[in-house]
């Protein structure tokens, strides 16, 4: 069997293994094995590439592989779960950079060998470099905002939209030009430079809290860039992996935008940057009832059925371990504890699930919104921990509210509601929450971790 045939078969095997790998993620108990398959697929594809006849010197390759592994290991093993959003943004930057550089290298080589690049290949290369470069800087900004070395607030400037549109138009013009004039390398590199600027200008004006949607979109763009690479160099496993990544990013951004009550086009065109609108109602005249840790502990200790609603505040306070501890105490007292997970609780799809899994909460105690929403009525206590928007009844009742129509968790239907938060501050959407003023609810003020520790102490000594 010739080297090329070995390589082609390895790519086919890798493609199939990637697909089976992702399929594993449809079932929690098959997910790990699935990812193992995908990893094997990656290994097979690497080996299949190394045997290719074109690959003649291995020295630099080895340098890259070792360096990459050295960077990858800490990114895999040391990054804490709470840092996942920035971790993922960072990786998109790497992925897009790799795709872009391959595109440049391919273009430069073809050109310096005096080859004529056909329209299809040139379109693929231009697309790859455009989307790749845009994703590199866009992901970098997203990373910076999430890691908080860039300001999280929207950075706006004058004529922002006009400038962005102008940049995009020029880049599109260059794209068209270089496709029909592949030898015009100035156009190619200028387009590349503009794409990096577009990436910056696209993401800078977006608030830090909106970054998850940005990340998903960037995921999808990086996937498309990878597919374009595949078209350019005629490699199907790249096309397939790129399409899978593209589909994943695209679908996650749709899921998020739906659950956040944003329109689909809003997401598609990246125009999700506007700062959250101000509250439509004020809390004037309403009084929220505070509760002491002692009283709250008493209620929890005697509850037969508790539903925990975690939110972004749990992630901020890193309170997931204390939640599990408290749940175990309640269970020891004969109560049942379930967790209600809103699709966009936290700041990333699946955010709450990972944190609770980290704290050893079994995933069959975690219920999706549709599964548990009818059960709140029977619950003795709904324990809201750092969640706000996802339990705001205005989404059901107030047509004037910006989140009206967004599906929410019916925590307000529980017999008693205990809310753990630090102040009366609003959540991500910046709007008042009537739940806090409801008759059946009371607030336990303070950092969620501290409050939970107090609750645990009270129940233990009781």
């Amino acid at each position, binding site marked *: 069997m010739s080297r090329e045939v070995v390589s082609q078969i390895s790519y086919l095997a890798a493609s199939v293994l*990637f*697909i089976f790998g*992702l399929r594993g*993620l449809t079932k*929690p108990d098959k997910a*790990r094995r699935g990812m193992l398959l*995908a*990893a094997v697929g*990656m290994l097979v*594809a*690497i080996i299949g590439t190394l045997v290719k006849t074109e690959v003649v*010197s291995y020295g*630099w*390759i080895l340098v*890259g*592989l070792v*360096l*990459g592994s050295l*960077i*990858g*290991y*800490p*990114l*895999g*093993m040391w990054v804490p*779960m709470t840092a*996942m959003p920035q971790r993922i943004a960072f*990786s*998109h930057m790497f992925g897009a*950079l*790799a795709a872009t550089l*391959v595109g*440049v*290298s*391919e273009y430069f080589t073809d050109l310096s060998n005096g080859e004529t690049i056909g329209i299809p290949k040139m379109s693929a290369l231009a697309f790859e470099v455009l989307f790749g470069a845009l994703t590199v800087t866009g992901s970098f900004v997203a990373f910076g905002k999430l890691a908080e070395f860039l300001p999280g607030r929207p950075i706006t400037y004058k004529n922002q939209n006009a400038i962005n549109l102008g940049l995009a138009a020029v880049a599109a013009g260059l794209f068209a030009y270089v496709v029909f004039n592949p030898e015009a390398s100035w156009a190619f590199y200028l387009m590349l430079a503009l794409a990096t600027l577009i990436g910056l200008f696209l993401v800078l004006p977006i608030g830090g809290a909106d970054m998850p949607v940005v*990340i998903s979109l960037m*995921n999808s763009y990086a*996937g498309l860039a990878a597919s374009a690479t*595949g078209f*350019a160099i005629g490699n*199907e496993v*790249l*096309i397939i*992996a790129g*399409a*899978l*990544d593209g*589909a*994943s990013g695209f679908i*996650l951004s749709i*899921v998020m935008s739906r659950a956040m009550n944003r329109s689909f086009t809003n997401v598609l065109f990246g125009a999700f940057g506007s700062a959250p609108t101000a509250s439509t109602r004020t809390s004037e005249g309403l009084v929220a009832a505070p509760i002491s840790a002692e009283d709250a502990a008493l209620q929890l200790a005697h509850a037969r059925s508790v539903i925990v609603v975690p939110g972004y505040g749990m992630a901020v306070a890193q309170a997931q371990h204390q939640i599990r501890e408290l749940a175990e105490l309640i269970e020891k007292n004969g109560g049942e504890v379930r967790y209600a*997970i809103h699709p966009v609780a936290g700041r*990333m*799809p*699946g955010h709450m*699930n990972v944190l609770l899994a980290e704290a050893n909460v*079994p*995933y*069959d*105690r975690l219920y999706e919104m549709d599964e548990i929403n009818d059960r709140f009525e029977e619950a003795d206590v709904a324990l809201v921990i750092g969640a706000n928007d996802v339990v705001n009844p205005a989404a059901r009742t107030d047509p004037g509210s910006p989140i009206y129509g967004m599906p929410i968790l019916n925590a307000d239907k529980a017999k008693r509601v205990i809310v753990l938060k630090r102040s009366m501050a609003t959540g991500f959407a910046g709007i008042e929450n009537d739940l806090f003023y409801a008759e059946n609810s009371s607030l336990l003020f303070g950092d969620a971790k501290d409050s939970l520790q107090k609750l645990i102490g009270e129940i233990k000594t009781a």
Partner: protein
Amino acid sequence: MAFADVYVFVLAAFVGYQIITRVPALLHTPLMAATNAISGISLVGSLVAAGSDRNTLSTVLGVIAVTCAMANVVGGFLITDRMLSMFRRAEKKQN
């Protein structure tokens, strides 16, 4: 560029759509990490760029690309597995 590749892309997008829409919300974060890892497949391009002695620029860009892609592969698969290993059922009483 073979036209058949267009079919490959369209079909792969279908497969992707059908699989991803069936990934439960529970596993959305691992999914993001997993696609990150898989995106490291751009190695198949960057290894060739780095190792085929075409010209210096190609080799330099190739090595950087190999580094970035490999970081995603190693980091991505490790963190996905780390996350997934935390998800577990409540089979027996937890301690």
